[in-house]
């Protein structure tokens, strides 16, 4: 009983982290049709920047927000200077994001060195929570709560605000949106910045669980891809559901069938693209 309970909570925590990572990715992919392969590196960059911010501002939540803003700014510059030039060249955009990921990874190595840097857990969340004889890290529960909160805020933003409506329009039909007068280019930059911010902040929030280390980008990117393909591109609900499904599949899969860990991870995604390309909630096929 203990084992199943803890594994379930582990799955939820991983799902929460994945949601922070994948929500931005899904929006970018949905609106701009760019598979942003830099997303893992943005997450890692956020984690590292958070580490540096924490030296000056020892509050994890503040560090997460500030780091998110810095990464968002970087994302904005990236979008305007590089991605914009490749408008229409979808493959080019994907490749460029891959190249930028290379550069960012090496940059982080130069600035922060090759050792893994721990991100301290906020002291009031360090002790395990004891409920019904089970001990479970309080911080991981907090991550789930944060993910849900962020999900609610994003949902409200996308569904109830004018900006959100414009984004939804752009995802549904870009040409029509342009024709109706929606400033699609500016929207692109906004969405890219938003996605980058979520990734960067996510990196800091995931820090106490994963730390900041070289290779973090390569570990997180495939997970983001899986979540978004599974959940469906351009759909927040899809990212949310996909994250938790992936969290469960990964956690239980690794525990029950460790040798097939990668197969378990990618098989759902392959099946989805092959037989239901829209994913669970997607607006269009990837």
């Amino acid at each position, binding site marked *: 009983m203990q084992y199943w309970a803890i594994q379930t909570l582990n799955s939820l925590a991983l799902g929460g982290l994945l949601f922070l990572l994948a929500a931005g990715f899904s929006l970018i992919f949905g609106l701009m*049709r760019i*598979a942003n392969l830099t997303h893992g590196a943005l997450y890692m960059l956020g984690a590292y920047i958070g580490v540096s911010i924490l030296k000056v501002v020892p509050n994890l939540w503040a560090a997460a927000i500030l780091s998110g803003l810095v990464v968002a700014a970087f994302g904005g510059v990236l979008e305007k200077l*590089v991605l914009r*030039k*490749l408008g229409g*060249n*979808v*493959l*080019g955009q*994907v*490749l*460029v994001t*891959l*190249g*930028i*990921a*290379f*550069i960012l*990874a*090496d*940059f982080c190595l*130069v600035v922060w060195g090759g050792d893994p840097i721990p991100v301290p857990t906020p002291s009031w969340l360090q002790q395990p929570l004891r409920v019904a004889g089970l001990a479970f890290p309080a911080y991981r529960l907090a991550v789930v709560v944060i993910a849900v909160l962020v999900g609610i805020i994003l949902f409200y933003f996308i569904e109830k605000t004018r900006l959100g409506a414009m984004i939804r329009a752009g995802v549904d039909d870009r040409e029509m949106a342009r024709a109706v007068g929606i400033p699609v280019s500016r929207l692109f930059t906004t969405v890219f910045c938003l996605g980058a911010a979520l990734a960067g902040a996510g990196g800091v929030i995931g820090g106490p669980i994963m730390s900041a280390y070289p290779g973090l980008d390569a570990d997180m990117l*495939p997970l983001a*891809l899986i979540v978004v*393909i599974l959940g469906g591109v351009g759909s927040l609900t899809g990212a949310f559901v996909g994250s938790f499904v992936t969290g469960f599949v990964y956690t239980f899969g690794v525990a029950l069938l*460790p*040798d*097939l*860990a*990668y*197969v378990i*991870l*990618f*098989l759902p*995604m*392959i099946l989805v*693209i*092959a*037989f239901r*390309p829209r994913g669970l909630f997607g607006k269009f*096929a*990837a």
Partner: protein
Amino acid sequence: MKRWIVLLLACIALPLVSGEYYINLASQILIFAVFASSINLLLGYGGLPTLGHAAYLGVAAYLSALVALKFGLGHLAAAPAALVGTTLMAAAFGLIALRATGLGFLMLTLALSQVLWGTALRWVSVTDGDNGLRGLARPAPFGINLDGATAFYYFSLVITVIALAFMARFVSSPFGAALKGTRDQARRMSALGHDVWMIRWLTFIYAGFWGAVSGLLFVYYHKYIHPVSLSLANSAEGLLAVIAGGSGTLAGPLVGAAIVMLLKNYVSAYVERWNMLLGFVFVVIVVFMPEGVVPGVKRLWRRFISRA
């Protein structure tokens, strides 16, 4: 045609003027050129961007190694086994991957190769996981020993020339023309009665076959295979080589392969952060020379000629 002959002569003459290190580097460029050319069949001529081609290189290499190590058979058995096995796998993967086009196709090829990579890493009883397979030998066609740098170089050169010749015939054949048609105007081709899916699937298999050939050359050269050869990074470098050189041309992948290999192996000795440099080159080429180096240079050459 004349340009090709000159290039071939230069390649043949290389070992006469260079030390062992450069001959080995040239062998690696040739192997990578075959790999990149096989990607080009899909990307440049078929319009299908694949980010998982390292799978074919890797699986062929592993099959050849496993046949030798686990069954103790020689290369006469291992090479055909590897080629046939990988080509069948390409056929199967093609069935899955071609259910989508564009980005979906890209994601599927990526996912399939990641599954293989993960399997190679975790199926330790077969692949020895992170240790890789070693203790392999190079083949000795007609009894010629290929352990020396020069001998292996000429062997690779022969295989590369054969591969490129076949690919050139393929591309200029009626099938090749149909393939280019599906790249440019898939719907129209369909309306004209061509089976677009079948054309793409056959190309996928053909590209997988040549990827397997490059895999055999790879494992013969290194005498070692490790799961990292199946990784996304390897596929991406191949893709970069094609795009850098110029997709949709025969010479493009060769130039691109040379550029990437030189950067990785030669420049990295002098520039410490060569990873970053590779990333920058990636970005610069894609943004400023999206058609690739070969067409870009051709363009400048024509302008130069017309001015003279």
